[in-house]
């Protein structure tokens, strides 16, 4: 009896080692993938590894990056937010409307107003999801449509351009030689990473997504946490909205259509589990970079954007397959 237990113990230890190797790959495979993409593009294209091009990539991913950071919080609680593209458009429009005309308001005021609108929009979703307990998918699908409609009503379907120069700084200026939009993405990601990894609030977000009933038993205000992630998502959608408006020097009523898909894709490619409780900001950033690099690299190589979509789609499915394998491993 005791020898057989020992043998079983040894076999168990061996399978655990294999399992943890597999887990290691499942966990960091996406980082390896990022490395391979960088390597391949450097070899294939002379123009890839130039500071000009890399800055360009970062600028291009910054909007999706900010959204993906917010989406990481939402998905960690086991939720989803489909309305972010619409919120982005509305907040960009609100911000732009305050900095045009003969007597423009201060850009600071415009930005704060836009952020406030974003938080309110996110809070609306949050109330319905946390307290009325409707599925996040349905609530935010409704918000996607309703907020887009509000944007069209507010703008009467017309774009707003001729923004004041102070406002445009947000999208076009640089800070220590780095584009402001990239700085904003970096700062957002850094702050979000610290919050999720090192604060009590972060732990509670993971707890709610990991097991809602256990979280409730542990005295966590589950509804409050759920509400907060949608409000935060609204805030970050607004930040992305004003940044995009400033970069394109105009607010378009059709801005941000389908942006939620790229944000969700980045989070999922980064290995955050759609069922909640597992994942984090660093790998979301990797996911954002992979999507950005694929788009950029395939452009450089002269591959049609049609193919880019196919490749992105395959990446998403592959990422979820890895996620599933990891769960099967753990169980």
């Amino acid at each position, binding site marked *: 009896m005791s020898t057989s237990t020992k043998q079983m113990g040894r076999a168990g230890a061996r399978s655990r080692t294999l399992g943890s190797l597999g887990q290691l790959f499942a966990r960091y495979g996406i980082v390896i993938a990022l490395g391979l993409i960088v390597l391949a593009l450097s070899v294939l294209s002379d123009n890839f590894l130039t500071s000009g091009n890399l800055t360009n990539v970062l600028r291009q991913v910054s909007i999706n990056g900010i959204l993906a950071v917010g989406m990481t919080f939402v998905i960690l609680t086991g939720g989803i937010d489909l309305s972010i593209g619409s919120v982005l458009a509305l907040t960009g429009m609100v911000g732009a409307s305050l900095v045009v005309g003969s007597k423009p308001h201060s850009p600071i005021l415009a930005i704060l107003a836009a952020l406030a609108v974003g938080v309110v929009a996110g809070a609306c979703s949050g109330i319905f999801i946390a307290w009325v307990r409707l599925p996040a998918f349905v609530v935010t699908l409704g918000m996607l449509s309703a907020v887009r409609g509000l944007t069209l009503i507010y703008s009467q379907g017309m774009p707003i351009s001729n923004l004041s120069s102070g406002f445009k700084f947000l999208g076009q200026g640089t800070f220590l030689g780095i584009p402001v939009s990239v700085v904003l993405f970096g700062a957002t990601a850094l702050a979000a990473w610290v919050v999720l990894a090192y604060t009590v609030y972060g732990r509670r977000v*993971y707890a709610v997504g990991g097991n809602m009933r256990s979280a409730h038993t542990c005295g966590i205000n589950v509804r409050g946490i759920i509400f907060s992630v949608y409000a935060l998502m609204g805030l970050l959608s607004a930040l992305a909205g004003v940044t995009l408006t400033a970069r394109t020097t105009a607010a378009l009523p059709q801005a941000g259509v389908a942006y939620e898909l790229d944000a969700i894709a980045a989070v999922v490619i980064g290995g955050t589990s759609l069922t909640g*409780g597992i994942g984090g900001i660093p790998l979301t950033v990797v996911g954002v970079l992979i999507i950005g690099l694929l788009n950029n690299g395939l452009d450089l190589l002269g591959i049609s954007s049609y193919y880019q979509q196919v490749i992105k789609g395959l990446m998403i499915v592959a990422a979820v397959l890895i996620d599933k394998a990891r769960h099967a491993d753990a169980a």
Partner: protein
Amino acid sequence: MNVARHEVMSGSDLLLKAEGIQKSYGGVLALHDGCIELGAGTVHALCGSNGAGKSTFLNILMGLEAPNSGRIWLNGSETRFASPASALAAGIAIITQELSPVPDMTVAENIFLGRESRRAGWFVNQTVMRRKAAELLERLNFAVDPRAKMRRLSLGQIQLVEIAKAIDQRSSVLIMDEPTSAIGEKETAVLFDAIRQLKSAGVGIIYVSHRLSELFSIADEYTVFRDGGFVRTGLMKDIDRDELIRLMVGGSLIDQQCAATESEKATLLEVQGYSRAGEFEDINLSLKSGEIVGLYGLMGAGRSEFASSLYGISRRNRGRLVMDGAEVEINSPGDALKFRIAMITEDRKASGLFLSQSVRKNISLTSLSSLSRWSFINERKEKAVAERMIERFHIKVRTRDQPVRQLSGGNQQKVLFARSLTTSPRILICDEPTRGIDEGAKREIHAFLAEFAAQGNAVLMISSEVQEILASCNRVVVFRHGRQVAESPVTRITPEHLLHWAS
């Protein structure tokens, strides 16, 4: 007590026979000698307290699990079912509390699920199905509308539908596991009528129920299991209630004497008139410093529901809570923790642990505010707390950062105890704290509870194990149908008392 097993059966028609069924899980023997002899047209009560091996035995009969050894005969020929489907095909049907009807289908559709009347081979013929279902229900005298959606039926009605289905499939053996635990008296009467009809049609029924009075009114024969083994079989008319209870709990009385900590101690918590509609009614109890109070009762007696509302997981409708002489309001687990009440829930995986997270994070979750400054977690402190708890409870882990999922049940349970201790509670509520864990861990948890209470705290422990209550509690409160029916120091009672009060 070696009563010959065959004396009862000798003459009648033997439908199902099982002998020497053995089953172990991970080296632990759950069943070492399961056997039964079921005759046609009889109702056979399978009795035993929790952990006697009844469920394991039934699972094996139904083909849900494979036995390690033992033989089963159906209608005289030896068989072994590889799956519930093959058992069903051979005419054995089971009706349990966890029925699985399709809630959005009608009664008729559920009865004929997988055996639908067809039209032209492809299309379900609703008319014929509905007519057949109506005839069937009419014949059985079941007041159920065949067109109603299953979702709208009461639990009792759902059971009737399942029974109708079993009858229509011409099952010769019907296993009923706690069929009345969730239904009222009127529905029970209808159920018993149905059982009598089945009996006269020659069906053999294995009937499991904790409600002993039911067994005496419906069963013809009994078989008692205890600690995973066969004890005795016989005719119901040859045994009385006391004798049956004695067979179930074993002859040995517990000579457990708990340290006599009695009434002089300070009262930590007083519950006055706690009620929640449909779950429990007018519960009054007090917890004194140094005390472990057991909460005993059958499944569905309202114990867990009461504990949950005490801890704030669910709201009460009425009742007051007094702590240290002052009335307190507990409306959420957060409130309870503030008043230094901790709880370990019944189902550790569903409402206790975070399986994919590390042992460390699981342990520290409720005490993060004291381990952090400006909301930033001091990981050095957190690790120290986790280490201390892992040592304190002898939790077997490779590292403190190992996911809880990989731990054994006993170690997972210890993680929950560790977490509850980090908030330095004065009152610990634990619901079935040792269910499904190994002997070693069980003993450690009992030792911990005794020590915890001895430090001037109090424990409220729900348990379905008579032995556990008698061995580790000072006082026991018994629930029946959501009401508090008895209260006594354990030194004055025997297992028989508990079973009497509870059933």
